[in-house]
């Protein structure tokens, strides 16, 4: 194996010192000249029509710059397809923006909200995804909202299927393949049922969403956004409103996919800035973040699965009911990828008939989050499958190894077409990881605890996740060599995963220099070329590949220019530590400073073309402890496993695996849920006292099993990214472990909180 200078080695993050000294800049730390503060009046009702709204007293309050309501808001819309207006007379959930104020201080803006008089006519509300599609259910949108895409219209609270993922092709919202009736006839065991992962959860970060906007002139806007993808903030909105948007993204205080696009919030604040003709910043409070900001998708799966006695999938049929709240930021895209992710893990199944519905209801909208459809669908569908595996008495590791997509197999991905990777295989990963976790020692059979100590029962669970996104979509980059400095331009923001360090290492490795000589330019789409953003674990390959190519191109030019000066051919030369030298006689050399002196740039460009033929994979092994008296379940041991091709950042990679616990990953199985009061249509757990996150004194032991098979990806070192999916397979693994710990009593509703566990045990 090649030994690298930086790749795979521990290097300090370049922003590390700033982080530990408090000097690191996050959006709300920036002083923006002449900024006004936005505050938003939210609907107190889950569903209502505004009868009248009077903002005159608020507008008259000294210090108030302006007020926006549905009356003066621009007629822009966001969502898939466009359906969510900036503001509307028809308010659709508790928290829907009714008015926004810009004022010279947050206190005055807040006071102005109290002066706005609104008269509402309350309307009946609907929350549950099954209730919402019943005939006669309250309609969240109406005929006149004119929601349409590719010939499909909004109907009975169902949004049209499909998103821009399919391009001009038909929407991908179902898999119909083979003959399920034939498949069931060939099955030895058939299970049917409904599993719900429909209690909404909060994937949010410690740093609440933030947007600041300034109209430079009628067609140029500067936006400050803590985003994973500055272009995802800028491009769709710019196209909608016909202006150029430059997004500036400093350090991001956590995202987990959830602050990827900031679609609605960015539109709201750009609109407020336009209406009030001032620079506006909106720093959401944590209460707003929990109550009104885009949450994780929730869903139910009602289906039927058939398998043979020797563990082969024969048929899968079902309805996937997806709750998107009042709107979809990209829910249909999550449906497409969720179907692909189920298809990857049950890849050997020949017979499919599964159809998704994206259903609106009067609860908080759904946005982007790690796991992105597959986590939620598989939490349900794979849990139902367990019933069948129990009947054939086959352990899940053995079963999934038989049925998982292998090199050369075809799988569906987000366009609705099939893709295939000819090389990447995870067979070995199953064996190595199972051995490291001690799976076969701990596994005692379905519904059998691995051990019982007094009132504490222990059980193990397993699950697996795979995504076709790691090389998705295009990324462009360029690398400049100036004197002794290398500057990387690739619009990758830092939200915790160390990707900017990976890019610095990539350039340093190829140019054979210390990492300290590399600067990664700010994640600002005004100074860096296009990139889709950090989604689907793609940037290890796409940004890494584009920066790698750019560094190689810059090196080639450097050697060419050096060759002229040194009177030899470029291929006789190499470079190390900022010196170009003759390979045959390194004493013949020229420092970079002599080739690219002051005020001189050597620039290389790179680009990776997206495809879906590189699927990643993460396996989650967990052991839980259940207190049989109190019903409290805890993960006590966990192991995350993958083959990542090549490790780039060892510590950061380990931490990505550990991060699969929180941010609505594994912990959605048993710890996290919003509690909805259906009498008032409001989440009751809208602060961090009531919506608890995992704490320091509640940690399992955690291990990883990581292989490095050097995959033929566009990453220059053969790496494949896995950051997004480290917890995506977690929920069904935890649920499986809990059921085994409690002797096989069934729980078909997430999360397995103490009440549900005690009920399953017949104790409540």
């Amino acid at each position, binding site marked *: 194996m090649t030994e690298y200078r930086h790749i795979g080695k521990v290097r*300090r993050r370049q922003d590390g010192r700033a982080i530990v000294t408090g000097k690191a800049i996050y959006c709300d730390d920036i002083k923006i000249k002449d900024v006004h503060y936005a505050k938003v009046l939210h609907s107190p009702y889950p569903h209502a029509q505004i009868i009248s709204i009077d903002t005159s007293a608020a507008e008259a309050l000294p210090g108030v710059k302006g007020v926006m309501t549905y009356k003066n808001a621009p007629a822009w819309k966001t969502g898939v397809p466009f359906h969510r207006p900036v503001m509307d007379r028809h308010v659709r959930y508790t928290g829907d923006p009714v008015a926004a104020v810009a004022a010279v201080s947050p206190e005055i803006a807040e006071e102005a909200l109290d002066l706005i008089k609104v008269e509402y006519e309350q309307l009946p509300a609907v929350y549950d995804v099954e209730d919402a599609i019943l005939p006669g259910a309250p309609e969240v949108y109406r005929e006149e909202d004119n929601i349409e895409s590719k010939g499909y219209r909004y109907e009975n609270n169902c949004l049209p299927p499909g998103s821009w993922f399919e391009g001009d092709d038909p929407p991908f919202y179902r898999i119909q393949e083979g003959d399920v009736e034939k498949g069931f006839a060939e099955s030895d065991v058939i299970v049917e049922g409904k599993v719900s992962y429909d209690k909404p959860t909060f994937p949010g970060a410690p740093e609440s969403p933030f947007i600041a906007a300034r109209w430079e002139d009628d067609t140029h806007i500067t936006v400050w956004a803590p985003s994973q993808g500055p272009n995802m903030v800028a491009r769709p909105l710019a196209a909608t409103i016909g202006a150029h948007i430059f997004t500036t993204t400093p350090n991001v205080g956590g995202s987990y996919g959830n602050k990827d696009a900031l679609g609605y919030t960015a539109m709201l604040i750009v609109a407020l800035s336009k209406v009030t003709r001032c620079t506006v910043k909106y720093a959401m409070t944590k209460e707003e973040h929990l109550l009104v900001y885009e949450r994780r998708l929730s869903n139910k799966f009602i289906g039927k699965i058939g398998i043979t006695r020797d563990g082969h999938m024969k048929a899968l049929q079902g309805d996937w009911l997806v709750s998107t709240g009042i709107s979809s930021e990209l829910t249909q895209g999550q449906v497409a990828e969720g179907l692909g992710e189920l298809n990857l893990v049950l890849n050997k199944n020949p017979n499919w008939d599964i159809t998704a519905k994206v259903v609106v209801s009067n609860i908080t909208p759904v946005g982007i989050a790690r796991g992105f459809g597959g986590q939620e669908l598989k939490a349900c569908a794979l849990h139902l499958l367990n019933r069948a595996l129990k009947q054939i008495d086959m352990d899940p590791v053995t079963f999934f190894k038989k049925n998982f997509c292998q090199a050369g197999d075809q799988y569906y991905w987000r366009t609705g077409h099939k893709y295939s990777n000819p090389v990447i295989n995870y067979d070995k990963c199953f064996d190595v990881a199972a051995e490291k976790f001690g799976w076969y020692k701990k596994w005692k059979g379905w519904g059998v605890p691995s051990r019982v100590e007094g009132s504490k029962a222990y059980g193990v669970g397993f699950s697996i996740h795979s995504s076709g996104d790691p090389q998705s979509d295009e990324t462009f980059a360029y690398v400049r060599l100036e004197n002794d400095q290398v500057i990387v331009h690739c619009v990758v923001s830092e939200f915790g995963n160390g990707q900017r360090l990976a890019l610095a290492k990539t350039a340093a490795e190829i140019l054979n220099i210390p990492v300290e000589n590399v600067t990664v330019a700010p994640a600002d789409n005004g100074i860096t070329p296009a990139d889709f953003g950090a989604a689907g674990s793609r940037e290890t390959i796409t940004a890494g590949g584009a920066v790698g190519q750019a560094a190689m191109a810059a090196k080639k030019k450097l050697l060419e220019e050096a060759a002229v000066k040194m009177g030899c051919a470029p291929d006789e030369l190499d470079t190390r530590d900022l010196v170009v030298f003759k390979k045959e006689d390194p004493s013949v050399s020229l420092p970079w400073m002599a080739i690219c002196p002051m005020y001189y740039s050597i620039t290389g460009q790179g680009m990776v073309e997206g495809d879906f033929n590189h699927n990643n994979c993460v396996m989650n092994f967990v052991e839980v402890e259940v207190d049989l008296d109190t019903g409290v379940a805890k993960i006590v041991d966990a192991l995350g496993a993958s083959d990542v091709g090549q490790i780039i950042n060892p510590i950061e990679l380990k931490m990505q695996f550990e991060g699969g616990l929180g941010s609505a990953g594994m912990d959605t199985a048993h710890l996290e849920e919003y509690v909805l009061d259906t009498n008032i249509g409001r989440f009751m757990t809208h602060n961090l006292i009531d919506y608890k996150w995992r704490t320091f004194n509640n940690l399992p032991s955690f291990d990883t099993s990581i292989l490095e098979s050097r995959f033929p990806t566009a990453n220059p070192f053969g790496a494949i990214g896995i950051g997004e999916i480290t917890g995506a397979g977690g929920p069904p693994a935890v649920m499986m472990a809990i059921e085994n710990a409690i002797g096989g009593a069934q729980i078909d509703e997430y999360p397995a909180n103490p009440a549900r566990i005690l009920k399953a045990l017949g104790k409540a």
Partner: protein
Amino acid sequence: MSRDLTLHINGDTYEFTIGRRLGQIPESETLLETLRERIGLTGSKMSCGQGACGCCAVLMDGKAVASCITLTAECQGKEIVTIEGLGNPETGELDPIQEAFLEHNAFQCGFCTPGIIIAVKSLLNANPNPTEAEIKEALSGNYCRCISHFQVIEAVKSILKGGEAG
């Protein structure tokens, strides 16, 4: 009515008056607002606003407090140290806790990191040689959504081993 207020922050003394006029500190202003908006010390972060998450933690007379629920008007005469004040301002030398966090990469997004470092400092001020269980308990009021907990614990343990209390 206005009254004087003297704050000692990171070794500097700040003279304010409390009142409702322009430039004065209103009684309702939190210490976090004063630090971030008036003094420009943005290392302490606003997150939950309820003292539940620890992102805004600062040392007050050596002990960690949630500055988002502490009123500035009540800080008369207190010694306040923020994340910016932990290192040596003359030499730029970091506090050993900060060095250990760097050495162990004990952060991901870094938003909660200042508060966690302050909580560790508070713990070590009171108990220079805590057990692992005591470290976890002392940090149980600091949320970290990225799950950097494991590296944080390693970082804290590393200074105990190296220290006199070893």
